[in-house]
């Protein structure tokens, strides 16, 4: 006989719905850092949760705004003659200066000092917020500063005027051609493209730890490649570890790959008592929880993205957690969040054995379907005998799942 009890969570210390996403996330980040997890870069985290605060959010909004949009996340800048690209930081300015000097090597070299002066003059009103935009309408807060590039044309007035006295809040993209340089759209677009590439490289540089002090492009690329390789190796190593730690852990690959994985939210709790031929009494408990997308901001990264289906083949008193929360942290794109399926086989050796499936829920569900509210079909089953539940290190999920305790008695 299986009886399900739903009780409020015992520990709400970490979970605080009123607390801002950032705070909890920072705290959890600290926790993670303490335990030695890979802590993602702060700017990228912040950008996920407070898209209005950081300039990186702009970049991320472009980078991640890719649903159904392949390669068009960044606006197409070809064909415009007057483009102003705001420099985000002084470093970027310097880089732009360097780029300008790079470009000018193709022609007869320019006066770099004039470039600097030009940049300095026009940049003072710039809030260093890099905006590359196509259309002319943008929110006021993001309005920014473009700092047009230095114009080295001495004969500017007579020319197809490159002087652009734009108000700081224009949303145009302005690029000034330099003296002696062709102003056809082709080379301008090329320049813009180069800038796009270097901007993305800069973002990668911030993402990859330990390459902030490396200046050469080759060195940065090296670090990126090493980091990606090391992450892939870590995944492989951890999966081997999981196989070693749990000799009974296995995946039914055939089923796994034959079905569609993303499904609407479902809370199914289906315990089935089964008198099998084994000497023990197995009971099958099946949790299916698939939660569709909700803009889950504040969802902790640690619990993200793993789609592991755990299946214990042997009976164990411990229930298998399988938080397979696949959640999108990006508020802007709002990727889907998947809950994973845990199938557990529990049995009790003696009649008094009470497998207790509890999890410290630090979750909240915002606007979830009703199936969530009736307790839980969640995935963090941790079981221990008789009422003791170990705390998860990664339980500090903020934000989207109802906290609940699940008890199962047999």
């Amino acid at each position, binding site marked *: 006989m*299986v009886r399900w009890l739903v009780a409020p969570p015992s520990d709400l210390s970490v979970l605080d719905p009123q607390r801002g996403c950032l705070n909890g996330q920072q705290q959890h980040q600290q926790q993670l850092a303490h335990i030695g*997890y*890979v802590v993602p870069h702060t700017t990228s985290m912040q950008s996920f949760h407070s898209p209005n605060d950081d300039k990186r959010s702009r970049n991320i909004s472009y*980078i991640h705004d*890719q*649903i159904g949009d392949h390669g068009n996340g*960044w606006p197409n800048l070809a064909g415009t003659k007057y483009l102003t690209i705001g420099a985000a930081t002084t470093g970027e300015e310097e880089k732009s200066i360097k780029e300008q000097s790079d470009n000018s*090597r193709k022609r007869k070299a320019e006066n770099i000092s004039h470039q600097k002066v030009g940049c300095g003059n026009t940049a003072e009103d710039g809030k260093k917020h890099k905006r590359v935009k196509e259309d002319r309408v943008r929110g006021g807060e993001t309005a920014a500063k473009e700092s047009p590039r230095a114009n080295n044309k001495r004969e500017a007035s007579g020319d197809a005027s490159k002087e652009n006295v734009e108000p700081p809040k224009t949303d145009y993209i302005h690029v000034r051609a330099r003296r002696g340089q062709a102003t056809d759209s082709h080379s301008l677009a*090329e320049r813009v493209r180069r800038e796009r*590439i*270097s901007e*993305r490289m800069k*973002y*990668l540089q911030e*993402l990859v730890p330990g390459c902030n002090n490396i200046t050469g*492009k*080759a060195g940065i*690329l090296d670090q*990126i490649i090493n980091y990606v390789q090391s*992450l892939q190796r870590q*995944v492989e190593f951890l*999966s081997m570890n*999981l*196989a*070693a*730690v*749990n*000799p009974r*852990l*296995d*995946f*039914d*690959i055939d089923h796994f790959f034959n079905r569609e994985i993303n*499904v*609407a*939210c479902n809370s*199914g709790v289906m315990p089935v008592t089964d008198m099998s031929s084994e000497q023990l009494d197995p009971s099958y408990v099946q949790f299916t929880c698939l939660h569709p997308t909700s803009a889950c901001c504040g969802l902790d990264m640690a619990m*993200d*993205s*793993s*789609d*592991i289906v755990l299946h214990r*083949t042997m009976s*164990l*008193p*411990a229930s*298998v957690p*399988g938080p397979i*929360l696949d*959640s*999108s*942290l990006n508020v802007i794109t709002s*990727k*889907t969040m998947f809950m994973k399926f845990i199938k557990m086989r529990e049995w009790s050796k003696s009649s008094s054995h009470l497998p207790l499936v509890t999890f410290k829920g630090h979750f909240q569900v915002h606007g979830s379907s009703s*199936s969530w509210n009736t307790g839980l079909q969640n995935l963090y089953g941790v*079981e221990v005998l008789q009422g003791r539940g*170990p705390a*998860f*290190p*990664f339980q500090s999920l903020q934000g989207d799942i109802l906290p609940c305790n699940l008890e199962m008695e047999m």
Partner: protein
Amino acid sequence: MENQGNNKTLSFIRTSTTTNAGFLERGRRIKMAAEMGLAESSRGRHWSRALRDRLLRRTGNGACGCQKEGLTPSKVAEDLVGEEGDDEVKEIARKLRALQELVPGGEDLAMDRLFEETADYVEALQRQVNVMRALDSLLGRLEKEKRLMGG
């Protein structure tokens, strides 16, 4: 209690009991599942689709909308490097090609898209590693407790 309703419930029924046999095989399967999870976590991304296709051994159709845009590694290398010598350009081109091979689906990506995909892929990998570490420690602790309990 009955299943509350979704027809698409996955059921993974495995009746065999494997002990130590096939440790490597299990590890591979776990890794496959982990990569599948990685791909699922960022749907809509080019690398996620490519990874999924590779895992399911499907041939990717070219109709994913990504265009090459004619940017080869050498050309971009030249852009990036600027004034440096020719061998440096070649070196950077080599590294870019290596990056293309690392990121799933990177072969058909233009350079700026490649960097975008790399950034997203790196973030997803970080998340994946975190989850797996947490899972690992949790399961390890459970096993230890089970042993302590004389299970």
